[in-house]
């Protein structure tokens, strides 16, 4: 029983962290252009 007291808050905390990460990424517009992000990685900034 005692280990549950430790584990459950950890599990919930990790889940909550994930939720916060999602909300943050949503607010910073990271879901605005999913296809573009996939392509931009191919673009070499230093290319002539």
């Amino acid at each position: 029983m005692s280990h549950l007291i430790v584990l459950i808050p950890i599990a919930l905390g990790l889940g909550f962290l994930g939720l916060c990460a999602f909300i943050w990424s949503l607010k910073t517009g990271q879901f605005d252009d999913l296809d573009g992000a996939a392509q931009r990685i191919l673009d070499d900034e230093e290319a002539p």
Partner: protein
Amino acid sequence: MTCCGASLPDLPATGTGDAAEIDDTINGGPRITAFMVPSMHCAGCIRKLETGLSGLSGVERARANLSTRQIEIIWRGNEDMPERIGKRISSLGFDNHIVEADTDQDDELRRKGRHLLLCLAVAGFASANIMLLSISVWSGAEAETARLFGLLSGLIAVPAIFFAGSPFFSSAITALSARQVNMDVPISLAVLLSLFMSLYEAMIGGGETFFDAGVMLLFFLLIGRTLDHLMREKAVSGVRSLARLIPRSVTRIDEDGALCRADLASVEPGMKLRLLPGDRFPVDARVIRGASAADRAVVTGEAGHVPVGPGDKFEAGVLNLKSAIDVEAVSDAQTSFLAEVMEMMKAAETSKGHYRRLADRMAAIYTPAVHILALATFIGWMVITADVKSSLVAAVAVLIITCPCALGLAVPVTHVVAANRLFQEGILMRDGSALERLAEADTIFFDKTGTLTDDELCLDEKPALDDSMAAVLHALAAKSRHPAAQAIAASYPEAEKAGLTGFVEHPGIGLEACWNGSRLRLGRLDWVAELDGLSFDPEAGSTAFGIEGGRGFSFHLTSDLKPDAASAVARLGAGGFQMAILSGDSESNVKHIAAETGIEQWHANLTPRQKVEKIRDAGSNRRVLMVGDGLNDAPSLAAAHVSLAPASAMDVSRASADFVFTRPSLLAVPFALNLSKAANRIVRQNFALALAYNCIAVPLAVAGHVTPLVAAIAMSASSIVVVSNSMRLAVAGGRASAVPKLSETAPTLTPMTPPPAGIAA
């Protein structure tokens, strides 16, 4: 009156730009304009566009979005910047169309979308964690652990349900306060009842809790609702952009001949007005002095020039092209042609709003049925057992089980998959209801110019001219902006030595000039034939070129059919659709195009009002799909049951159409129709599946056998079934056009041949 037609300076045609627009633009803060660039498809395109546009003076930032195929540009400067940016994008090798500016309404819509996504995230988090706790309870945890987990679940569920359920609760409250019942009422009831019941159970530590069912219900429903919301493309009101065509102020000619600026609203019939080249008629008016040319595209959809002379009457919105004219108003601003068109569009848009979506129609039957069933279960259990708690549990189970998870997902998922499929083929969809309406269409009306045909004219046959004559003809034709002249100029090579003098353009008749002392004419056949020593075969064409005392040539100018127009029509004909052409063009032209495409019914010389009337007449017993692009089609696009417009269409028409296709091929029309029918089939299948699920699950719920475990499994299973069924649409429908897939046109990297081993070593 101080002015008369003869003394008016013959100003050069200024084109479509409003030369007299004295509206000062505020060149203050940066502004944002978005362009649709359908052919953008890879990292190279993004880079090319962004760097190419950032180099343009006045552009602060350019950011391409590959998902929406749009590029957003932040700029400072004059009103003509968007036009210049558009030209730059074209010169970079991309087709582009300007996207209507954002409005408050769009902001509101976007905020709502964000909120839904947030609710979805919270519901997802909560349901995952509660499910984790529930599974251990179901697999037989000790009573003490079960109780702890129940309380924990409650702790997560209460804030999650109140936050994530807010879209449903507020909608249910709105419906109830209007004394109506919508789908959200049983949803809210089920979620809240199960929450309070489970809380009670968790507190006293007795029976089973339904926390997971409630939160999962919200999660599934929010998926459907979010998808549905994402579909709703900006529904820009077409009426607003049409109003932009009307100048806000006019130049009035007073009794004593003085010119003064006046407000449009002050114009009364009988008032005399001065129109400069580039001005649009502010009201319907009769010309009293001056000669010019006008573009009546607003009325007819044809970009041709018509002669303007005293006594001619023109509609509001017609563009004066060549020289200043004086007109006498015959209507005021409220009763003008353009005001009438706007009125028609408003009426059409409101009547379209009455269309009820399939899901809503289903909900109207479903919702009362669910309520009655739950109530009957409660009463039945009360009669049999006289135990309030177990009766309530059974009733809540009915509400949860019958909750339209599958229904709420079935339609939006299908529509999203269909919209993606259409997007791949270059067709943009306004909302899900448009797809449903498209599937119902059985009659198709086409506009001619710009829809079935290209806007530009071209020479059917090129008469053989010797080099010097060809050079002269080019030089003469190149002096005019008339589409026919431009088509002729484009067909003959440019040369240096053509020495033309005394050039005159007679609007609606032709061009005249002197060359080596003899008169040259290019224009209407009978007019050119007036020159000495010229005769033509009237069968050979309607436009002629001749030199006094020399030879004459005639041309046959046609506008080209769009690629695949005939095959698209043939395909639609095979599909059993009735088709007709509604055109504002002359009878002979329409007849010609009708014969070429194989459309049997056609109507020529139609005003926008007559087009709408034709659609209304047909609409009494048939569902009309209107395909059109011109300004004159805007009301008919709005009035038709469903409408399609090419991306090259006027923005008014684009805004009032339900679908916009961005590729030139007309095969988009049969493709969209087929896909809409496939989507409709799948939606109906999904309804059938959901119904079958209810047939099995509802008796269980009424009998009181639904435990939280059964509810969780049943809900997820039915949702998975309908979603996977919808996914089948992703491969349905075939290809819209012969255009190779984007990935196929993407430049392939040619691997560098490795140097011979000997050199490298």
